[in-house]
Structures are given as C-alpha cells and as structure tokens.
C-alpha cells in the first residue's frame, strides 16, 4: 500500500473538486513564513509524516504571527514525530470549524465491494467512537458497476444518525467526489477526517489516501515508488528493491529494513545478520530462534510465489548490499516453489559479488532448501563450488527453523574464531 502525505492527498482531492484549505508544503522555516504571508494569518502548520494522531503528539501547531510560524516550523523540523524525521511541513489557512464530519471510502474484502463510511462525529477520536458505538459510523456498500450517484449519496447521508437537510445537501457532492477519487486512483482507502463544516461550506481539513500497491504502475502521474508499507519513508535500498516486482508478476520479492544502520543490533548487543525466507511464517519463526542466540535480523525478506531466478538474483544483491551484516540466512518453508531456480538466482548473485572466490562468501551463510527441487538446489551450490566454502552451510528438508538457527550459530562461531572478526 502506498500512502500519500497529507499535502499530496489534498492536491488529489482538490483536483477532484473537493474544497481543501489554501496552503503549501515547504521544507524550511523561511519558506513556511513566506507561505503564511501569502495566504494570510492565522495558519495551521502540520508535520508531514505518515503517522496518525499528529495533533495529539504535537505535530500540528497554530500561529497568529510570522514569528510564531517560524518558531513552530523550526520546532517541527527539529523533533522526529513517532520516531520519523520531519522533512516537510504543510502551512495552510486555519479554518473556522463549526462541526467535524468523517467521510471515507474503502474496500470491504468480505463483501468484495467498496464501502462508504460516514459519521457526523468526525475528528481524531473516530476510532474510539466507532469502537464504543458502531452505530455512529454508517457503513454502506456501493455497487461498483453503478458507482455512487448524487441521489445515492444523499440517501446514505439521510440514514446517517443526526444528519440535517443542510448536511445532506452540502456533503453529498463531497461524498460523490471522494468515491470518484477512490475509483480513479485505484485506492485502498480515501478518508477525510475531518471534513470541516465552515461558513463557506465543507472543506477537507485532512486527507488520507492509500493507493493499492498493485496499481501504482497505472499512475505515473503520482510519482510514487513501489515500496513496502512501513510507516516511515522508504530507505534507498527499499526503493531499489521495490523496482524488482514492477512488470514481472512471477513471484514476489518483499524487502524491508528493520535496522537500516545497525544501531538497534548494536544497542541490544546483537550480531546483525541479513535474511531471506520463502514464506512469512518460516521467516518469523526463524527470527524468533535467532534473536535468543544473539543475532538480529536487520531486514525482513520474503521471496515466495515461485519467483524467477533473475528475481532471486536481484533481491539477493540488494540484501547483501546492507553494509553492517555479519552473516546471511536463506530459509525456505516446505512448499511447491521450484528451489533449483531459487538457488540459481542466489548463486548468480554470489558469483557476482564475490568474484575473486568464484562466489564463495567471506561471511557465514546458511541455506536451508526445503520443498520442491530442494536436492537439485543443493546440487546447484555444489556444482558451482560454493558448497565447498568453509563459511557455507547447506541444509535440506530434514531440519526445522530451530535446527537452522543453531547450525548458523555454530557456523558463525567457527567463522569468528577463524577470522578474528569481532561482532
């Protein structure tokens, strides 16, 4: 899922005819003051990070003078929000809000239909409201072939508890445009929380737009990069890994850095290792076994669904490019994935990154091939001389995740003792 920043979401909504506050995203306090001067005081200054509850965490400030704008902007850029550095802030007109409404369109997987969500008690506490009294949030499925026409939007609003005639008339066009946004941009979620009811009519005071990953290629106009959803901006390696699945549907290559600079491993006194699994279950259980033994997987990777060898080659190069790693594990779950192809991709990558040794690595590496063509996979490693490396351990379907972790531990200790490498 690719989540847009608030300012990007608002741009999209503006283009679809939904009123949004006047404002602009900026990257320094001087620009912030300039924009505030242009649009007029008072203004709201909002940290642009992909996290919720910004208001309650100090990520949204208000200013009535240009000096206050500069001070607020400086403060927002200085402090990470929910651990995420703030790289942009949105400076926009401060709205005189009479009431706050919640509007959203999302997919209902159980119905396989879009569903429109409306609540007249919008605002930051919408989740609590929905949990405490689900009747406050009206859910209405939409027939995707018919779309959401004006009369249907009015009917939805009419059924919303507490809605007045004025609400129905002013919000129906917003709801229709929101639904069109959802469809036109292949969204998983479009949400305005809140729609601010002002004297000038409804205005989108916030915007959340999540685009379906699989549809990103259909929207080059959005300039999105295909990366995993992590709640923080993607790392450069994640951006590179995100290109691997583009245009090639054969299997998947998911890659997320859990500890991009190795600082977490260092802090915990653990040994940073790189990691790739076939199947998330095998991945999680192996991680669980590795951590108590003193290792910290600095990335998560899942290469499943029978990826081509060329996909394996590319993701392996990305995984090994993490500078801080002191070992690598590849563990497959027992599945129908054709593991000889998987092995060829890994071997091709190893030969390229360790050319002086014909692919034999200089750090401990463990490969547990379990599943279809697992013996052939091991044979590929033998044929290419990589199995002969003292720092390579090859295992088959006779082992479980704990055995694999223990075997890696033994291998790592042997490597450390022989090379004098200090973890």
């Amino acid at each position, binding site marked *: 899922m690719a989540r847009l920043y608030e300012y990007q979401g608002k741009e999209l909504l503006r283009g679809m005819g939904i009123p949004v506050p006047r404002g602009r995203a900026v990257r320094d306090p001087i620009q912030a003051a300039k924009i505030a001067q242009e649009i007029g005081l008072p203004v709201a200054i909002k940290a642009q990070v992909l996290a919720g509850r910004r208001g309650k965490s100090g990520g949204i400030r208000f200013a009535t003078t240009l000096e206050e704008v500069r001070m607020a902007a400086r403060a927002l850029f200085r402090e990470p929000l929910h651990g995420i550095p703030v790289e942009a802030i949105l400076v926009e007109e401060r709205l005189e809000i009479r009431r706050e409404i919640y509007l959203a369109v999302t997919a209902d997987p159980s119905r396989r239909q879009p569903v429109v969500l409306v609540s007249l008690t919008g605002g930051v506490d919408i989740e609590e409201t929905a949990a405490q009294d689900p009747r406050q949030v009206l859910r209405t499925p939409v027939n995707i072939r018919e779309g959401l026409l004006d009369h249907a939007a009015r009917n939805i609003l009419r059924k919303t508890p507490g809605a007045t005639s004025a609400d129905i008339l002013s919000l129906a066009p917003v709801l229709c445009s929101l639904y069109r946004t959802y469809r036109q941009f292949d969204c998983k979620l479009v949400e305005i929380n809140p729609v601010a009811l002002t004297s000038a009519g409804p205005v989108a005071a916030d915007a959340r737009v999540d685009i379906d990953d699989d549809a990103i290629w259909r929207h080059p106009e959005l300039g999105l990069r295909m990366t995993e959803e992590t709640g923080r901006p993607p790392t450069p390696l994640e951006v590179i890994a995100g290109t691997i699945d583009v245009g090639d549907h054969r299997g998947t290559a998911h890659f997320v850095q859990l500890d991009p600079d190795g600082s977490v491993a260092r802090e915990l006194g653990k040994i940073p290792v790189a990691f790739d699994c076939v199947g998330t279950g095998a991945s999680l259980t192996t991680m669980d076994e590795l951590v108590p033994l003193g290792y910290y997987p600095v990335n998560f990777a899942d290469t499943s669904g029978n990826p081509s060898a060329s996909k394996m080659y590319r993701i392996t190069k990305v995984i090994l490019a993490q*500078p801080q790693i002191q070992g690598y594990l590849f563990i497959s779950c027992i599945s129908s994935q054709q593991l000889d192809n998987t092995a060829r991709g890994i071997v091709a990558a190893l030969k390229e990154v360790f050319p002086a040794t014909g692919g034999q690595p200089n750090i401990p590496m463990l490969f547990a091939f379990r599943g279809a063509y697992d013996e052939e996979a091991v044979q590929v490693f033998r044929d290419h001389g990589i199995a002969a490396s003292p720092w390579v351990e090859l295992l088959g379907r006779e082992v479980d995740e704990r055995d694999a972790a223990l075997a890696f531990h033994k291998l790592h200790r042997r490597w450390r003792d022989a090379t004098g490498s200090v973890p």
Partner: protein
Amino acid sequence: MSLEFHLLSGGSITIHTPECPSCESKACVKVCAEQSPGPVLILGEDGRPCLKPTLTEIKRGVCTECLGCLLECGIHGNNVVRFQAPLEGLEAYLAEQEAAGRIPIYRQDAKQVEST
C-alpha cells in the same frame, strides 16, 4: 556476432556465439530444454544456440529467467553468456555508502576466505 534477447523482467541475456561451435557440452541448450513452457535455446546447424520462440514471445515470459544458460555455460561451456538485470540505483547507493565509509561486507575483504 551475439545472440541477444530481452526478458520480461526488463533484463536481457546476451550470448557471444562465435565461441559456441568449439563448445562440446552445449550445456545452455541442455538446461534450457528442461524448462517449462519449453526451450528458448535450441541448437542451430552451425553448432551455435539459436532461439526457438520469437523475441516477442520471449519478452512476454517464455524465457523463465531460470539463469540455467548463464550458470551452465560458466562451468561446462566457454563462459560466453551474459545476463543483465535492472537494479536501478544500486550502484549509486553502493558508491554513496562507500564514500561515507559504510562498505558492504563483500567489498571489504573479498579474499578473506582464501586467507583463512
């Protein structure tokens, strides 16, 4: 003279075929014959591998990108198969890391295995 074909992933395979007539193994053709949906590489009358499907079919995914031809030619043939795969930004990333002193382990001491 080379045989070049483009792949679904955006990469390409190039075979420097002038070296092929002298190759006894024809390992590329043998490994490719085992691939489903059928071989991409077949042996031509001149002793060089040639393509069975069209370039368009290959680009649509008939070549499964198993990399068998690349690896088998490397050990049983004359090592004349080259594979290119797009990984936009990786080289620039590595250069940036190296400039900042964060060198990937495999570039730190590639001969470590030999010295131990």
